[in-house]
C-alpha cells in the first residue's frame, strides 16, 4: 500500500513536470517569435535592477496596501516552498517529515511557515474583497471582462485552498503525533493549526490517517496543478519578473532608439560617402505583427500580470480615450499565443495573414502621449510605449496612415523646418523685439 502511494506520487510528479516543461518550451518559443536583440551590457546595473525591483519589490510598495499584501504572499510563496521540498522528498521515499532531524530549527521553521500560510490566506481574501466587493476600477475595465477577470479570481482561490489544505494537514498531523500513531513522529510547531485540532481530536487514528493523507495529497496535487495552470495564466510573473527586470531598458526613458536601417538610407541621400552602399535595403519598417517586436517586448507581454497600474496612470485612459497600456500587453501576448498555435499546427513558416494591428486599433495607438507614466508605474518594468511606438512607425512608414494633421505637421517640417507653417527665414524674428 505504502509503495503504491510512492509509485503513484512519482508518476504524478513526472506527469506534472512533463507538462510544465512542455509549457515552458511553448512560452520560450513564443517569446523568441520576437526579433533578436542583444541586451547584455552593464551587467552590474542589471543585477541591481533585478534585486531592487523583482526581489525587493521596490515598485510594488509605491501603493502601500497592495504592496505590503503582495509582499506577504510573495514571501509566503517562496518560503513555504521549502516545505514543499520536504513534501516532495516524503512523497518519493515514503518518509514523513524527513527534515525533522533538524530539531528546534525545524520546529521554528514549521511554526513560521504556518504563520506565513495564515498571512497569505488572509491577504488573498483581502485581495478578493478589493476585486469583488470594493470593486477597484482598474480590475474592471473593458479589457478585463471574461477570462482575465476569472483568471485573477482562480489564482486567489487556488492559493486560499492550498494554504487551507496545508494548515488542516498540519492539524491532523499533530493530533496523530499526540496520539502516538506509527510513522507520525513528533516534529514541528503549530501556532496556527493548533486551533483546528478540536475538529480532528474526536476521530480514531485510522480515520485521521485518511484525513492527513487526503489533505497531504490535496496540498501537493494542488501545487502541481497550479504549477501547470500558471503557464496558461497571467500568473507567470512569479517567474518572469526576474528575467524581465534583469533585461530592463537602462537608457533614459525618453530615448527612443534610432532605426539603423533608416540611418543608412538617410546617409545615402545626404552624405553617400559615409553610407554603406552594400547594406541590404530594409525589408520592413516598424511593427506589423509580433514577429516584428523584439523578444524583450514579448517577454514583457508574458510577464504582465494585468494589475493595471499602467492603465490607471495613463493620461489618455484617465480622460476616457480607448488606449490602455495593459491592453497593449495583453493583446501582444494573445497574438503571440495565437500565432504560436498556428505555427504548431501548420509549420514554423506559416503566417495567417493577420497581425497585431487587428487587435490594437489606430485610435489606441495615436492616443499615446509617450509620457512614460505606464513604464514608471509598472512594478516589473514592462514597456508598452515601445510597442505603441513601433506600431506607429509601421502605420506611417509602411502604410502612410498617419492622422491628417500629423501628415501636415510632417510636410511643414520637410518644407519649413518647423512643425508649423512659418517661413524658415522668420525663425529669428523674435530677436528684433527684445
Amino acid at each position, binding site marked *: 500500500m505504502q509503495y503504491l502511494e510512492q509509485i503513484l506520487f512519482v508518476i504524478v510528479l513526472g506527469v506534472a513536470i512533463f507538462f510544465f516543461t512542455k509549457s515552458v518550451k511553448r512560452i520560450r518559443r513564443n517569446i523568441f517569435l520576437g526579433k533578436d536583440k542583444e541586451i547584455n551590457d552593464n551587467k552590474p546595473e542589471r543585477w541591481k535592477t533585478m534585486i531592487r525591483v523583482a526581489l525587493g519589490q521596490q515598485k510594488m510598495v509605491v501603493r502601500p496596501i497592495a504592496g505590503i499584501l503582495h509582499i506577504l504572499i510573495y514571501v509566503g510563496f517562496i518560503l513555504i516552498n521549502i516545505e514543499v521540498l520536504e513534501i516532495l522528498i516524503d512523497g518519493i521515499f515514503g518518509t514523513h517529515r524527513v527534515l525533522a532531524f533538524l530539531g528546534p530549527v525545524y520546529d521554528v521553521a514549521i511554526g513560521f511557515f504556518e504563520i506565513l500560510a495564515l498571512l497569505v490566506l488572509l491577504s488573498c481574501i483581502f485581495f478578493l474583497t478589493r476585486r469583488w466587493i470594493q470593486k477597484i476600477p482598474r480590475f474592471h475595465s473593458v479589457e478585463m471582462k471574461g477570462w482575465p477577470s476569472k483568471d485573477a479570481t482562480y489564482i486567489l482561490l487556488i492559493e486560499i485552498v492550498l494554504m487551507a489544505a496545508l494548515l488542516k494537514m498540519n492539524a491532523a498531523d499533530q493530533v496523530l503525533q499526540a496520539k502516538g500513531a506509527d510513522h507520525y513522529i513528533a516534529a514541528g510547531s503549530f501556532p496556527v493549526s493548533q486551533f483546528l485540532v478540536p475538529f480532528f481530536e474526536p476521530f480514531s487514528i485510522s480515520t485521521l490517517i485518511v484525513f492527513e493523507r487526503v489533505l497531504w495529497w490535496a496540498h501537493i496535487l494542488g501545487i502541481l496543478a497550479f504549477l501547470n495552470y500558471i503557464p496558461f495564466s497571467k500568473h507567470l510573473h512569479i517567474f518572469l519578473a526576474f528575467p524581465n527586470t534583469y533585461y530592463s531598458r537602462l537608457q533614459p526613458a525618453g530615448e527612443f532608439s534610432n532605426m539603423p536601417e533608416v540611418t543608412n538610407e538617410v*546617409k545615402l541621400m545626404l552624405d553617400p560617402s559615409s553610407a554603406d552602399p552594400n547594406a541590404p535595403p530594409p525589408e520592413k519598417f516598424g511593427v506589423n505583427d509580433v514577429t516584428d517586436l523584439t523578444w524583450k517586448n514579448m517577454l514583457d507581454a508574458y510577464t504582465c500580470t494585468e494589475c493595471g497600474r499602467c492603465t490607471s496612470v495613463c493620461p489618455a485612459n484617465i480622460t476616457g480615450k480607448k488606449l490602455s497600456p495593459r491592453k497593449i500587453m495583453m493583446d501582444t501576448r494573445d497574438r503571440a499565443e495565437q500565432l504560436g498555435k498556428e505555427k504548431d499546427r501548420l509549420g514554423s513558416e506559416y503566417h495567417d495573414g493577420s497581425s497585431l494591428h487587428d487587435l490594437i486599433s489606430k485610435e489606441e495607438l495615436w492616443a499615446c502621449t509617450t509620457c*512614460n507614466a505606464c513604464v514608471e508605474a509598472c512594478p516589473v518594468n514592462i514597456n508598452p510605449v515601445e510597442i505603441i511606438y513601433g506600431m506607429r512607425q509601421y502605420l506611417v512608414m509602411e502604410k502612410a496612415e498617419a492622422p491628417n494633421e500629423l501628415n501636415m505637421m510632417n510636410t511643414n517640417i520637410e518644407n519649413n523646418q518647423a512643425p508649423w507653417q512659418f517661413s524658415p527665414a522668420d525663425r529669428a524674428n523674435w530677436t528684433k523685439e527684445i
Partner: protein
Amino acid sequence: MSEGIKVPTVAEMVAQGEKPDILFWVGCAGSFDERAQKITKAFVKILHHTGIKYAILGTEETCTGDPAKRAGNEFLFQMQAMANIATLNAYEITKIVTTCPHCFNTIKNEYPELGGKYEVMHHTQLLQELIDDGKLTFGEGAFKGRKITYHDSCYLGRANGVYDAPRRILEALDAELVEMKRCRKNGLCCGAGGAQMFKEAEEGKKEVNIERTEEALATGANIISANCPFCTTMLGDGVKHENSEDKVEVLDLAELVAQAKDL
C-alpha cells in the same frame, strides 16, 4: 530696462573669429509660437544679464525632428537630425542649452548615435547652476510667500530624471511650492507629448490638459510654473477653459526668474 539686446548668432561670432561657450537652441515653439517666444525672450535676458557667452543658430536652426519621430516618421527625424548635426559640428559646438524639454531629450539622447555628441542642458539646469554659483542672486524675493505649483514635463521629468533643478529655482525665488498630488515621477502629462500637440485628441470624456489644470488649480496656487513651451500652452489653455485667467498665471521658470530680476 533691457531693451535693445542684440542676440548673437553663431555665424556672426565665427565671422569675428569667436565661438560661443554655449549654444542656445531656441526650438520651433520658442522661435515661432507667440506664447513660447516670451519664454525665449525671458531666457535670453537672463543669459545677457549673467554675461554668458552664448549664441543662437538663428535661421540655421531647424526642427530637431522630435515630433516626426514620436509620430513614427523615422526618416524625417533622421533627415532633420543629420542636417542639424552637420551644422552643429561644423561650428564645433560642444555645449547646448535649450528651453524645450523635447529638443533637450532628442539632442541629448538620440543625436549622439547619429554623430552629434554635445553636453546638453535644459534651461532649468543652467539656471540652477547659475544660482548655485552665485551668478544669479535674488534679493528680498519677488515671490516671497507666493504660492506656486510646479508641473513636471514628461520629457524633463520621467524621460530624463530632472526633478530637482526646477524646484531649486523656486526655492531660490523664496516661493512657497505647493505640490500637486501627481508630481515628480508620478506627474501627469499636459497632453501635448508624442506629437499630440499637432493633432486633435482621440475621442474621450475629457481633455488631458483640463484634467491636469484642474489638479493644478486645486492646489490654490496662483502661479502654475512649467518648464516646457508645450506644457505652458496646454496649461494656459486649461486655465482659460476654467475661466481662471484672472487669478492664475501659467509661467515658465525662466519667466519667473526674469520677473524676479526685473529684466
